[in-house]
């Protein structure tokens, strides 16, 4: 109950904080006095065209303050994050951070617990359409996993039969009402006690395919670093689904690029495919209900809507070292319609906020709080930008070019295009047109606002399951 009330406060806190920041800026402008826009449009003749342009640009102090603020904020968040991850890396405090590298190194010094083996756990709830290609991608890895277990959770289709036919193990959940997290807890409680120090466990979604080399790279990293607790995958979107598919692919390409620029420092160990050393999962289960939220003995917190995000914060809170290498890539399914995308993002958004509510403000969650506040402020910034454009278009009786702002627009176009360069020409073309992606961002912003409102009003959140209908996924979703 206490947890629920805290969740509500998260929504209110973020809404108040970003509104206050925007109001402060507005006030500062009012006090300073806005720069009076004198109608200073001039004519020039370019070829056969008569062009109206306005040389208006913000004053130097406005530009300098905005640039300085952006740089300070970006550097501040990056430095803070680096400092926190380094301090936990060097920490020897066994009680508060039992997974910190120093402690793990001490505990495993001089012992060889055998080579790294991989046991893959695939939670599946009616995944007959996508499971075969998931298993195929696993079985064709250059480093084949030692064991694959399909966790059939309340399946009413051919999931179990298909798994048997592929020659992998099947674990059927018993009386599970806690969705994916509950099913995973059941299977992990059975297999973890028998795993050695280097027998890593991979949790992989049934709608995902591993790129070749994923497991070989992960195994190499676990072999080279005994303190490494988790390796996360970088996900790319599958092909198809037209424009809405391209929007999502662009998003994922940018995320992967950002991860590379962070040199693999993990933001979220994706639920699509991540590997864990058994010590990490066992320690999480031991600490639940004590230093981290959840029920003692559970690896996954069944109250969390986004269990991968929650487990990442849990491992970070316990000091665990983790990485998302650029060569561990997976292809994941995309949401085929606006309705399913809305449901998916609302769950992600709501889950992220609830996890922050559960953990509160700690050094390990500061980066996630900053991200939520950043998105919240982005909603105000993008809305006011679009409002200004609309007002201008509807009130001017002639097109006026603003060279300064055209230059800034060009910079945004370049940034959009360069950050999706790896996605191919379709990705670059969509990014170059700028406004479709801005509108897509606005769609995500509306989802964000809905998440904040829902959590603040204490509305219950739901776990939507997307029904896959074969290679050409349908746009159906059921709750």
């Amino acid at each position, binding site marked *: 109950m206490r947890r629920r009330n805290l969740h509500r406060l998260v929504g209110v806190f973020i809404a108040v904080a970003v509104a206050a920041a925007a109001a402060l800026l507005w006030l500062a402008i009012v006090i300073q006095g806005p720069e009076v826009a004198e109608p200073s449009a001039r004519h020039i003749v370019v070829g056969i065209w*008569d062009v109206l342009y306005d040389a208006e640009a913000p004053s130097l102090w406005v530009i300098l303050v*905005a640039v300085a603020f952006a740089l300070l904020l*970006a550097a501040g968040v990056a430095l803070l994050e680096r400092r926190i991850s380094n301090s936990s890396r060097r920490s020897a405090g066994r009680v508060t951070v039992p997974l910190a590298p120093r402690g793990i190194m001490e505990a495993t010094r001089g012992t060889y617990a055998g080579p790294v083996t991989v046991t893959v756990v695939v939670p599946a709830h009616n995944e007959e359409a996508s499971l075969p290609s998931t298993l195929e991608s696993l079985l064709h890895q250059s480093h084949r996993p030692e064991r694959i277990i399909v966790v059939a959770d309340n399946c009413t289709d051919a999931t179990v039969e298909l798994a048997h036919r592929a020659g992998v193990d099947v674990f059927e959940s018993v009386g599970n009402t806690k969705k994916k997290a509950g099913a995973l807890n059941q299977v992990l409680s059975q297999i973890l006690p028998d795993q050695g120090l280097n027998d890593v466990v991979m949790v992989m979604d049934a709608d995902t395919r591993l790129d070749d080399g994923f497991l070989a790279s992960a195994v190499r990293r676990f072999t080279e670093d005994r303190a490494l607790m988790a390796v996360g995958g970088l996900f790319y979107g599958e092909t198809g689904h037209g424009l809405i598919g391209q929007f999502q692919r662009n998003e994922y390409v940018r995320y992967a690029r950002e991860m590379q620029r962070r040199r693999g420092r993990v933001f979220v160990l994706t639920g699509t495919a991540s590997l864990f050393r058994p010590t990490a999962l066992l320690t999480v289960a031991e600490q639940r209900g004590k230093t981290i939220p959840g029920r003692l003995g559970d690896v996954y917190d069944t109250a969390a809507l986004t269990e991968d995000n929650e487990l990442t914060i849990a491992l970070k809170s316990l000091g665990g070292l983790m990485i998302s290498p650029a060569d561990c890539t997976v292809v994941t399914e995309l949401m085929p319609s606006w309705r399913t995308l809305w449901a998916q993002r609302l769950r992600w958004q709501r889950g992220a906020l609830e996890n922050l509510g559960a953990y509160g403000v700690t050094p390990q969650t500061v980066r996630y709080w900053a991200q939520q506040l950043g998105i919240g402020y982005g909603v105000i910034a993008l809305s006011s930008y679009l*409002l200004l454009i609309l*007002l201008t278009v*509807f009130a001017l*009786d002639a097109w006026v070019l603003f060279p300064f702002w055209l230059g800034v627009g060009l910079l*945004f176009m370049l940034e959009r295009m360069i950050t999706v360069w790896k996605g191919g020409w379709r990705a670059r073309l969509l990014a170059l047109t700028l406004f479709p992606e801005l509108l897509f961002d606005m769609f995500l912003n509306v989802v964000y606002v809905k998440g904040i409102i829902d959590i603040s009003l204490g509305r219950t959140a739901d776990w939507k399951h997307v029904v896959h209908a074969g290679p050409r996924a349908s746009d159906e979703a059921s709750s």
Partner: protein
Amino acid sequence: MTALPTGILLPESVIHSDLFALLAAFVAIHTVFYATLALSKILPKVYLSDWVRRRHERTETRSINPEDPV
């Protein structure tokens, strides 16, 4: 590009109102702010730690095999 009649919904006086000037300044600051962030995303990233002498060199192997070199 010729001057196209576009003032279809609102009077042009909107553009010259105080409120519009405030909104324009508000948006201008944000746009420059986000443009700076956009520029930082285009430029190659500088890793300060690469330039600073490392204080914490490894003193022992981190491999799962104790016999492996540091």
